[in-house]
């Protein structure tokens, strides 16, 4: 209270004035060193470089430049975030949960509390936010939305999610990661580029030394068998 009152009147302290001067010098320095980039250059930056760019643009007072970088980041991931969430939460909340996940992930990256590379962090937050949705739904059984929401939107996914619980929201990703961890590093690499990267067995052999097409097929087959067993422990072999 005291600080607000001091700032409001004529009684600003020497310390406050010093802080204002220091802040002004800091921003002047940042403004001199910050160079706004055109969109085609922004597209080439990594996620972490984009975050740094947004931070620098803010320090330099170049809000419009920071906005362009935010656009690249949000647009770059929003649809895939929604796609993943459509597997986890009801369709009428996909947009809201996606927004929450993007905001949380970008904010944490911005203030330095995120862990690891941005994309992986973002998808971890997507998982956590879908868990939060189910926890909040327990506290507030009926999620109410304004009638205008989603009206006329054609990109809100249809049908219901494949899972419908807090546990299900997390396990979808965890199971794949757990199964992957049962393979050695080289075989994991094969699965990453073949099963999730879309490379053919031949292309995998060109990329990973010592692999044959048969090897790739065997590794992929073992991965899928383990995944099936993990997803449905009581199912047919």
């Amino acid at each position, binding site marked *: 209270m005291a600080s607000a009152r001091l700032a409001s009147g004529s009684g600003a302290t020497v310390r406050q004035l010093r802080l204002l001067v220091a802040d002004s010098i800091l921003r002047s320095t940042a403004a001199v060193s910050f160079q706004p980039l055109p969109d085609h250059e922004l*597209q080439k930056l990594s996620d972490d470089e984009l975050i740094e760019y947004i931070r620098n643009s803010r320090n330099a007072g170049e809000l419009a430049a920071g906005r362009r970088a935010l656009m690249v980041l949000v647009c770059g991931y929003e649809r895939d975030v929604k*796609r993943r969430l459509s597997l986890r939460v009801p369709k009428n909340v996909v947009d809201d949960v996606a*927004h929450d996940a*993007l905001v949380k992930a970008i904010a944490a990256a911005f203030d330095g509390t995120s862990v690891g590379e941005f994309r992986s962090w973002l998808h971890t937050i997507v998982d956590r936010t879908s868990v939060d949705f189910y926890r909040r739904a327990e506290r507030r059984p009926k999620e109410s939305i304004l009638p205008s929401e989603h009206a006329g939107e054609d990109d809100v996914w249809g049908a219901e999610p494949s899972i419908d619980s807090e546990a299900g929201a997390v396990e979808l*990703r965890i199971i794949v990661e757990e199964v992957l961890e049962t393979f050695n590093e080289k075989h994991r690499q094969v699965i990453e580029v073949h099963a999730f990267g879309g490379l053919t067995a031949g292309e995998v052999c060109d990329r990973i030394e010592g692999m044959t097409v048969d090897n790739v097929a065997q590794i992929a087959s073992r991965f899928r068998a383990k995944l099936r067993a993990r997803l449905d422990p009581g199912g047919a072999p």
Partner: protein
Amino acid sequence: MTDVDRLLAEYVAEHRAGGVADPRAYLSRASPQQSRELAALIDAYLARAPRHALDQDAFRGSSAERTVDELERAIAGQAGLWPAVLPRLRNQAGLKRSTLVERLASALGVSDRQDKVANYYHEMEQGLLPARGVSDRVLEALGQIVGETAQALRDAGRGLTPPDEGPSAAPAVAFARRAYVEPGGTESSGAQPPPRGEWDEVDELFRGS
């Protein structure tokens, strides 16, 4: 090639071609036994997919644009993530801002100064009011109205301080004074604290902590 392999390959192809690539449409084509496996594979594929290029045309008027607007306001402002969080919570609670303000003023026992509460709440949503000055009483009352805990609101208000910056060097006041135009046409440039003689209970609630 199993049905799951075929559906996954089709999904990846549609996704890479920039199509809708709605996972649920593909899951509906799989048998119940195969559905979870396909969901796990599509999910893992999407979690590894590289960032898409910015599509300016698709961006305009999209939910991504709203997210960018709110994040921009949060980054420029002094209220942490409130510009990105409060409007969403209000919408999820199905409340117009005027209704929320009416309830908030009533809960705080200042119904006779509803206009002043409205101004302060507007500044909270716009990121113009320093979050650290807002009292726990306001956050508790607000939390009850929108279905969130006071602590979560407080945490959201603390967000977005870069790691190498203390509170004093954080968002420049000049940025926060930037004018924003509300969808309804209301423009705010961020109110200054009232002169000392005019400080009242509402100022104390929203600026006094």
